[in-house]
């Protein structure tokens, strides 16, 4: 049986062996000409090809689309109009008053996204930090709770949105509780404040487990002897947190911040299913705006959607660079 398995394995591997043998002299020649650098390039090529096809080319196409007009989808049918789409997006009398802008929904979405990122990232970092600190302690059922907090991360965002929509709708679970407590039911998703809070809360609930895991890994990497020394010195717990835990967790926190920030700006799926951007436009976020303009409206405007996505991408790049710059500076200061 073992011999049979071995034979099957050899037969199955035969084409690969033949290809490798055929390539061998060519690769040797290539290495002789180009050295180790050439070989690195050769082995990176498949990966870079995939990256190019699925990232670089779409990115370039997106930039090109943003410079074209009309409602046709194929690039060959679209006239070049320069930066008109950007001009249309940025045309505004008062940026703080979206209704004075030509693309008022874009600026409403920008404002909503900025507010969302501020509240959601703050909440996410705080809650993830607290959860990680608790789960890092020797508590009963630690493994179970780690799994419980991570579980929502495994759910599809659409499922998350639907679950919470059912909970918060007029005849949902939340109103069952409210009415059983003797209060009038509330149409949560029709109220601007509650709907926005729900978007922030649900998004935090859905992704918190992932960030908790990163922080937990960071906490477990902090040398125990530092805590033992602090304990011997009878250092108060708050001082231990501010002077040992937080500084040593800095790189992990920076990662969490950057990732949460990027994810926050990209918020779409669960919020779209949960609130549909409403009430009014109070939870209309930038990605939904791009989706609406580029795909969902009857007369699509791919150029305008592409321009909006490029602007969003630029903001993300700037934010990421600022975050990375700050965390590098903090690391240098700690090293001194």
């Amino acid at each position: 049986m073992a011999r049979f398995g071995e034979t099957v394995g050899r037969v199955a591997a035969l084409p690969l062996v033949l290809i490798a043998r055929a390539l061998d002299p060519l690769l040797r020649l290539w290495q002789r000409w180009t050295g180790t650098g050439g070989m690195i390039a050769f082995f990176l090529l498949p990966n870079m090809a995939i990256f190019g096809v699925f990232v670089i080319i779409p990115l370039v196409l997106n930039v090109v689309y943003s410079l074209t007009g009309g409602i046709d989808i194929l690039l060959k049918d679209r006239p070049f109009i320069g930066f008109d789409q950007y001009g249309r997006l940025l045309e505004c009398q008062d940026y703080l008053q979206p209704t004075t802008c030509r693309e008022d929904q874009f600026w409403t979405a920008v404002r909503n996204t900025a507010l969302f990122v501020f509240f959601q990232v703050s909440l996410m970092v705080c809650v993830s930090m607290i959860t990680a600190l608790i789960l890092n302690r020797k508590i009963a059922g630690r493994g179970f709770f780690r799994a419980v907090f991570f579980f929502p991360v495994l759910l599809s965002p659409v499922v998350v949105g639907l679950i919470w929509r059912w909970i918060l709708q007029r005849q949902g679970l939340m109103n069952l509780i409210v009415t059983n407590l003797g209060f009038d039911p509330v149409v949560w998703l029709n109220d601007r404040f509650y709907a926005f809070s729900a978007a922030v809360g649900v998004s935090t609930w859905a992704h918190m487990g992932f960030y908790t895991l990163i922080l937990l890994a960071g906490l477990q990497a902090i040398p125990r002897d530092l805590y033992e020394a602090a304990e011997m010195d009878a250092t108060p717990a708050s001082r231990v947190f501010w002077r040992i835990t937080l500084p040593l967790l800095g790189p992990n926190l920076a990662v969490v911040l950057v990732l949460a920030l990027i994810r926050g700006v990209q918020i779409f799926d669960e919020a779209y299913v949960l609130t549909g951007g409403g009430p009014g436009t109070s939870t209309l976020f930038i990605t939904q705006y791009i989706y609406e303009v580029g795909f969902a409206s009857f007369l699509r405007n791919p150029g305008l959607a592409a321009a909006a996505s490029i602007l969003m991408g630029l903001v993300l790049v700037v934010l990421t660079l600022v975050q990375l710059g700050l965390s590098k500076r903090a690391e240098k200061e700690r090293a001194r």
Partner: protein
Amino acid sequence: MKKTIWLSGIALAAMATSAFAQDATEVRIMWYSDGNEGEVIADLLNRFEEQNPDIDIILDNVAYQVIQEQLPIQLASGDGPDIARVTNLKAQAEHWLDLRPYVADPAYWEENFGDRLDWMREDGSDAITGFMTQLTLTGGFANKTLFEQAGVEIPAKGATWDEWIEASRQVMESQGLPAAFAIDRSGHRVSGPAVSYGGNYIGEDGLPAPIDDGTMAFLTRLVEWTEQGLMLPEVWVSAAGTTYRAAADDFINAQIPFYYSGSWQVSNLSTKIGDAFDWVVVGSPCGDVGCSGLAGGAGLVAVKYTDHPEEVARVLDFLASEEIVREFSERTLFLPAHAGIVAEGGLEFQSDDPLVPPAMNAFVAASAETLPAADALPAWVWANAYYGAIVTRVSQVMAGELSLEQAREMMDADIADQVEAAGQ
């Protein structure tokens, strides 16, 4: 050895079958369903395949969203199915195949589907691109049981929107309901009522006219009814942009006594309500100038990028035949678009629900009351631009973000932007 011989036999048979199957021409249909029409069309197509073994039909049942969002991209790239069931017929007319040279009898098509051929071909064209699988008409549904329990008379034919909302308000208050009525979140749905108040979307040059006072008269009422808690707010207020939301579930759950939607809901309501309560179709309430609903529907069209136009025409000739259209309508509870069948009458809608036949008849009767300004909209290429602007901005007014006057200006600007973008 015996086993080897058997296996070889099976392999040869499989090869022969696949070779035989390859002889048949493949015709691919992209289809979406609101109710049971997917099962009915599959059954009819099986019958066609039995009669025409040289054609192999692949029926792709997809979500409506795929028709709305993915099909246009396929069409723009010169690809797509051979036949598609579409509602956005006019705006995509450049992609439909002219079947005139291929169908068996163009005169039959003209005679029976001629009234709606303009809905699915480019302006000025005489092409035959397909046929309407169903005609729809917007209209109202009343929960008869709730009205009776409240001791409120269902408003008589010719009652105005104000009278309907007032009667529904009384039912709401009497029965402790969350709202008096709801209209689907759709620009199409409010356009019949807007026309009833004198609204006209089409300018003299065929381009969108500015939002007029007639349209504003109905939209103003709609906003006021929402502010007064008479219209169920979550349908319109709790979404942004052009997102479509139906209020059928709220009517089915007896949360509202009056629901304005359309004839395509009959099957859905009949199936889901069962004998929980009695409901009736009440047509469209009246405005200042009429009691108009808005016609529409879905069409089955041939895509011009097909490699098999003759076979596509044979499939459509079969599906558009009087016998098949009649059976399709009776089994799906859809209004037929076939002039011969409509003239002949006597459709026997197949439903055990005694509420269905009067409901369908009420829609047939209401179809005679549509106004010319409403009848022009399905064949007007800018209709969807208008609908989208209305839904987006009126929702913002309902949410307190805009005043009605601001919304009016913005609707005009949105529509103008779309016209400008399309003209680039």
